């Protein structure tokens, strides 16, 4: 069993009235790729900033490799690489010069630094564009240079904030491959925050679902699925021919069925157990044709949606809150 490199206990952050992060407990093991999933404004970035010692928590603590993130930010930042969302570079300097500057900030210099820069440029596929001014780079190139920038200090842990935002599908594929590589070949630990599930799903060992400042669930995908079932039971989509009212009454008679709703031309059947086997037999005996049968809850999308429902959330409200946070009034309270 690998040891925990990130240890978060009762971490809380309040901005005035609003609680951005609420009593967060989380452990991330060495070499793991952990996906922090949640809608905009759920507190993901705040959590990351606290991990880097850039924001002081209201309560609780975060440890990275046994070092307190608030007390020893310098030591923590020398082992943690951070790729912020919308990473930026000095436009007047070339990509290479930008990397060199970061290297110097990390106490590297001379031949060692130059070699590492060349290596990393090669690795992220930026060798050709390296001597162009960074101001001319596209979003995807900035992202790639950002990854090289993070790797300059050769970090044990890499934190990426919304790395998949605004990347084209080809860039996305490369990015995900690189993430896998960083984890499997280099043995680095990765913490990736995102609200785009499809992409993250492919690379993460474990995910945590973060809603309104609280971690509502965490674990591997099968674990989450399992947990989902225990909490909410099964949800079955059923389309039959003929689609009449008689069937509704008959479905209610089935053992385990707790609720049925209509959705367009389908029934949504909630049950406490897997009824697929019994149901198909029953329908066949009564002369119904099954047109559609799908057990919901298998993919992350569904899990994600269900957890949001559970937490009484929807994306729109969160977006609205995030917008409000941009306002002057809130900024003023944040400063205190």
């Amino acid at each position, binding site marked *: 069993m690998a040891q925990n490199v990130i240890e978060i206990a009762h971490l809380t952050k309040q901005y005035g009235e609003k609680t951005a992060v609420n009593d967060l407990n989380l452990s991330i093991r060495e070499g793991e790729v952990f996906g922090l999933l949640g809608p905009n404004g759920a507190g993901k*970035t705040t959590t990351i*900033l606290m991990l*880097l010692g*850039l*924001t002081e928590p209201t309560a609780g603590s975060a440890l990275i490799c046994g070092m307190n993130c608030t007390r020893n930010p*310098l*030591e923590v*930042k*020398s*082992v*943690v*690489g*951070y790729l*912020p969302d*919308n*990473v*930026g*570079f*000095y*436009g*007047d300097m070339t990509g290479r010069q930008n990397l060199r*500057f*970061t290297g*110097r*900030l*990390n*106490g*590297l210099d001379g031949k060692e630094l130059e070699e*590492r820069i060349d*290596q*990393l440029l090669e*690795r992220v596929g930026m060798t050709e564009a390296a001597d162009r001014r960074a101001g001319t780079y596209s979003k995807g190139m900035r992202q790639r240079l*950002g990854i090289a*920038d993070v*790797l300059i*200090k*050769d*970090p*044990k842990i890499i934190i990426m904030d919304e790395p998949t935002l605004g990347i084209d599908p080809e860039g996305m594929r490369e990015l995900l491959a690189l993430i896998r590589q960083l984890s499997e*070949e*280099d*043995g*680095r630990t990765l913490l990736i925050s995102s609200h785009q599930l499809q992409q993250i799903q492919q690379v993460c060992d474990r995910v945590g679902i973060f809603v309104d400042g609280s971690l509502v669930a965490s674990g591997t995908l099968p674990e989450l699925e399992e947990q989902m079932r225990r909490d909410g039971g099964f949800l079955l989509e059923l389309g039959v021919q003929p689609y009449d009212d008689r069937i509704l009454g008959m479905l209610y008679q089935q053992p385990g069925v707790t609720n049925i709703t209509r959705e367009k031309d389908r029934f949504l059947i909630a049950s406490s157990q897997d009824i697929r086997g019994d149901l198909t037999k029953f329908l066949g005996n009564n002369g119904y044709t099954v047109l559609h049968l799908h057990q919901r809850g298998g993919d992350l999308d569904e899990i994600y949606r269900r957890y949001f429902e559970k937490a009484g959330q929807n994306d729109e409200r969160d977006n609205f809150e995030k917008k409000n946070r*941009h306002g002057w009034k809130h*900024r003023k309270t*944040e*400063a205190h």
Partner: protein
Amino acid sequence: MKRKTGTAGSTEKQRRISGSVGRKALFRKELADHLSSRRFLILLLLIATTSFASLYGAVSGIADTLADDSSYAFLKLYSSSGSSVPSFMSFIALLGPIVGLALGFDAVNSERSNGTLNRLVAQPIYRDAIIVGKFLAGTAVIAAIIYSVGIVMGTVGILVTGIRPDVEQVARVLIFLTFTVVYIAFWLALSILFSVVCRHAATSALASIAVWVFFAMFMSLVANIVANAVYPVDNEYNAMLNSLSNYNLRAGLNRLSPYYLYSEAVSTIMDPTMRTVNVVTVNQVVGALSSYLSLGQSLLLVWPHLTGLAALMLIAFGVSYVGFMRQEVRSN
């Protein structure tokens, strides 16, 4: 396990985690940024052009100036104004702030809006190294501009006029240039402060220019109005009663302005005949020798001004420092 960039964290031992590494790298980068920027060239051109215009004015009028008083001729290259061209001293007092403001108005907010700030603070450096590095690099650039232009100007003046300066005059010029650097560094600190407070570079540029215009042009008006309201001198009786208090209040208010403070200080340094910066009564002058003030005495006269300017600079920088340290890093 195959590793491409060496074992993760393997260089930890060789790496020194110390603030001074980061501070040095930041200072170097900021300095290189300034020196290679078009902005620096424009500022240098502006200062150099105005300096030589004023030198030309001073040289062309120097015969008349020296006819009145032929001592301290070298200083007159800086302080006298020729035909319709203001002197170097008044040019610098007016235009110097532009240099400071131009170097600092986007120091922090452009990093923030470009998304480089959060990348920077994630490096193992102390956060204050960023703002200290910016301020020191800016001050170094200011010092480079002012000393080089000032010294070149003096040299050209010597070559053209054949005036031979003595040590005291050279010392006075160097002190004058030092005052100027502190004065402009104050404006740099002020513009950095605005760049911390304002989110957009344009806003902070406008705000700092507004402060500059206010102090350079309107502060004396305001001081006049306030002094006349508090101690009216509108009729003879009032004038007799209030003129001294009126003058003192007006001077006191004016000295709140760095522009006035600087002008008063450097005109005292550059003019040894200036014996006092305040009102003296006839009684106080009785028995005074009619001679020039020595350098030490001139300096003593404006020591409070230097302290005041340095304090203003440090306060402006201190506020921006604290503001920056307490500010949220996130860009949105």
